[in-house]
């Protein structure tokens, strides 16, 4: 495990307080919750403090990512909980509910509120809400350098005096101020009694109303709810807390309900009132440039968000991403492939030569075959995620969504859906997980259903292997047509689903466009690491397990795959295969095994056509067994066939079994349809 600068560095002035340690309360770890709006450098701070000791999982029962980590500071154990990045705590989204429920119920010792100094007033909105939750707060004023580049200065002491909260200036990307932040937070955790800042006031007009609600609630609320907090939230029209009060305090609700009905529009005033309070708090501390200065962000955005140049730039960046991914990763993939198939598998075979045949078969074909598949994909994912992490970290991703918004509207989606779909080119699993950035459920489900139509690296590798042997002279055209076909299908399916299944509903497109800034290698590295971990955990277990099962199905009763259960199933499917010109059961079995992992197709063909590891020979054997028109249909089916098991598992996790099955059936129907259409059309062409 790595040690961390902020935790290691002794912070001189705090030594004196160490003498006070030793009581039982001092023994337990201090829990710090990290709160902040998106784009405040929260993950940079979290990564700096915890490094690789962080644990990435989900919030219990939720599909929102939870990151926790540990570090020690002055011999004290600190547990850090990264709350979801939210602009406010209104409970209109799952992230907001998680953040506020965590603070209310788990009662962390201190909440660190991270602010982006370059947008101070908007960032203080979250602080105004956090103050209602009645936990000690330390303000981390981050990105002071970015603010200065915009001509904005914030005086930390002045802000601290106004808010009566500790404020620590930070440049997290350069590791400045983090040990001070920890020192102040730990100190506050030891002396929570010293924390008594004034609460943000609401507008004069609503104070009597708020007071009446508070009085009605007093004594009726279950732990851990505070009347002042619940009253404000009810006045804001908070659905969750309204239900809570209706259930737990029905008599109070009887009195409150008419008041709320009479002040239905109060939410506008409360939001407005918070900003008035913020303006008073920030007035003395904040200096803005007199005239607007033309910043780097303005200059880049003149191109990057232009309706025409922006789209051009986007395509250049996408093309460069793919080109870099494949040109950097391919040599590594070949090396790994050579090592696993050429060295490891034979070595294991020799080692197990004297064991029963089922065991050596299981290990060399089932286990090493399956795990090897996963491992050879790592380089491609590694490079792809590194490039995406870079684009995300510098701030370009939001522009990508912006530029694509108009186009995505035709699919009933908005710009934010473009990012997960783009991730899908690397691997569909992170793409499925990536749909979490989409706020409303319908858009998210629609995006989830479309993801498997984005050809992932595995699908592409199969087609890239087969296309040149089927069509030696026109392979590049065939490939382009197939990828284009998939994307066209994606657009059509999106438009149809939107029109008929989702009734044209579309979520709101509201998105912050962060300022561009220099990339931080550490943040990118951890982005890659977290995504790879997600892939490995899912793919590693599912692929290895299922490939062992399929290996068993393909080996028994034997001898050989020709006389296996899988082969029998393939033969049974032949009449259906004929619709698409695929009358050879071996082709159908190859498709079936691609359900485990797309790249299985080629390996299965190798076994069934008796070509072993000789890939060139295999190509010619398969090509000889098919007419060109059937070959084209086979490729088209391959491109649209079922999502792989790991993707299905990811969809199940994100949206439930129902949508996982919908996805399977949808893709199955589409691939059969694509096969039939291509086969029939091919009849005219060939």
């Amino acid at each position, binding site marked *: 495990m790595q040690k961390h600068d902020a935790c290691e560095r002794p912070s001189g002035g705090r030594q004196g307080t160490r003498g006070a340690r030793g009581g039982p309360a001092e023994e337990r770890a201090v829990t710090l919750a990290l709160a902040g709006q998106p784009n405040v450098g929260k993950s940079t701070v979290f990564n700096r403090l915890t490094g690789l000791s962080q644990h990435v999982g989900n919030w219990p029962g939720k599909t929102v990512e939870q990151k926790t980590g540990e570090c020690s500071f002055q011999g004290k154990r600190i547990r850090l909980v990264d709350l979801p990045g939210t602009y406010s705590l*209104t409970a209109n989204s799952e992230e907001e509910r998680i953040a506020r429920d965590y603070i209310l119920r788990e009662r962390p010792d201190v909440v660190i509120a991270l602010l982006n100094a370059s947008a101070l*007033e*908007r960032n203080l909105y979250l602080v105004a809400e956090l103050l209602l939750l009645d936990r000690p707060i330390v303000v981390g004023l981050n990105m002071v350098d970015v603010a200065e580049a915009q001509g904005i200065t914030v005086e930390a002491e002045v802000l601290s005096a106004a808010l009566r909260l500790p404020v620590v200036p930070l440049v997290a990307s350069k590791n400045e101020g983090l040990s001070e932040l920890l020192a102040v937070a730990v100190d506050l955790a030891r002396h929570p009694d010293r924390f008594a800042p004034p609460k943000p006031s609401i507008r004069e007009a609503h104070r009597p109303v708020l007071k009446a609600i508070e009085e009605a609630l007093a004594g009726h609320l279950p732990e851990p709810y505070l009347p002042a907090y619940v009253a404000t939230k009810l006045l804001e029209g908070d659905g969750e807390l309204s239900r809570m009060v209706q259930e737990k305090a029905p008599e109070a609700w009887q009195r409150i309900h008419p008041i709320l009905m009479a002040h239905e529009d109060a939410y*506008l005033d409360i*939001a407005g009132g*918070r900003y008035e309070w913020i303006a008073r708090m920030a007035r003395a501390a904040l200096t803005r440039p007199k005239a607007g200065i033309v910043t780097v962000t303005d200059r880049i955005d003149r191109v990057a*968000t232009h309706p025409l140049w922006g789209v051009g730039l986007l395509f250049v960046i996408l093309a460069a991403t793919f080109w870099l991914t494949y040109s950097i990763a391919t040599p590594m993939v070949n090396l790994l492939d050579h090592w696993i198939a050429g060295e490891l598998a034979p070595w294991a075979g020799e080692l197990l030569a004297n064991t029963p045949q089922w065991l050596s078969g299981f290990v060399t074909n089932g286990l090493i075959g399956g795990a090897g598949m996963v491992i050879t994909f790592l380089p491609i994912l590694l490079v792809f995620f590194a490039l995406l992490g870079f684009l995300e970290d510098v701030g370009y991703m939001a522009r990508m969504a912006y530029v694509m918004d108009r186009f995505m509207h035709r699919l009933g989606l908005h710009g934010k859906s473009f990012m997960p779909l783009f991730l899908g080119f690397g691997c569909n699993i992170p793409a499925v997980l990536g749909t979490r950035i989409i706020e409303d459920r319908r858009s998210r489900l629609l995006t989830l259903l479309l993801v498997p139509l984005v050809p992932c690296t595995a699908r592409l590798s199969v087609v890239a292997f087969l296309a040149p042997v089927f069509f030696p002279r026109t392979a590049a055209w065939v490939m382009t047509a197939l990828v284009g076909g998939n994307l066209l299908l994606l657009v059509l399916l999106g438009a149809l689903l939107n029109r008929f299944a989702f009734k044209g509903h579309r979520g709101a*497109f509201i998105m912050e466009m962060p300022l561009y800034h220099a990339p931080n290698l550490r943040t990118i590295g951890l982005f890659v690491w977290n995504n790879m971990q997600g892939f490995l955990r899912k793919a590693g277990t599912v692929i290895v397990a299922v490939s062992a099962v399929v290996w068993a199905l393909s080996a028994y009763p034997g001898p050989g795959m020709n006389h296996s259960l899988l082969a029998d199933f393939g033969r049974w499917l032949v009449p259906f295969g004929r619709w698409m010109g695929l009358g050879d059961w071996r082709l159908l079995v190859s498709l079936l095994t691609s359900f485990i992992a797309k790249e299985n197709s080629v390996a299965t063909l190798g076994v069934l056509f008796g070509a072993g590891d000789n890939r060139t020979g295999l190509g010619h054997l398969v090509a000889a067994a098919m007419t060109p028109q059937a070959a084209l249909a086979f490729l088209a089916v391959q491109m649209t066939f079922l999502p792989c098991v790991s993707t299905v598992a990811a969809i199940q996790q994100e949206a439930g079994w129902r949508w996982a099955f919908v996805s399977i059936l949808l893709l199955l129907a589409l691939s059969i349809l694509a096969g039939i259409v291509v086969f029939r059309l091919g009849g005219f062409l060939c």
Partner: protein
Amino acid sequence: MNVRPLTDFPSGSRGRVQRLLGGRMLSQRLAGLGLTVGAMVEVLQNYGRGPLIVSVRDTRIALGRGQADKVLVEPRDG
């Protein structure tokens, strides 16, 4: 008062938000990003089609046209 939806404002124009239509959910999401009644907005980009980019409380926000239509703004100079 000459109050118009934000979609009517050309790139480079400024104004003060007078009303937010579109209900509580939308208003609260906008409030989190700094866009409330009384806030000064500057339209950074409005090409007449596609989403807008506006600047409000030192934040750049991309707004779909549907959402921008619900933000009523009174023009101001400077």
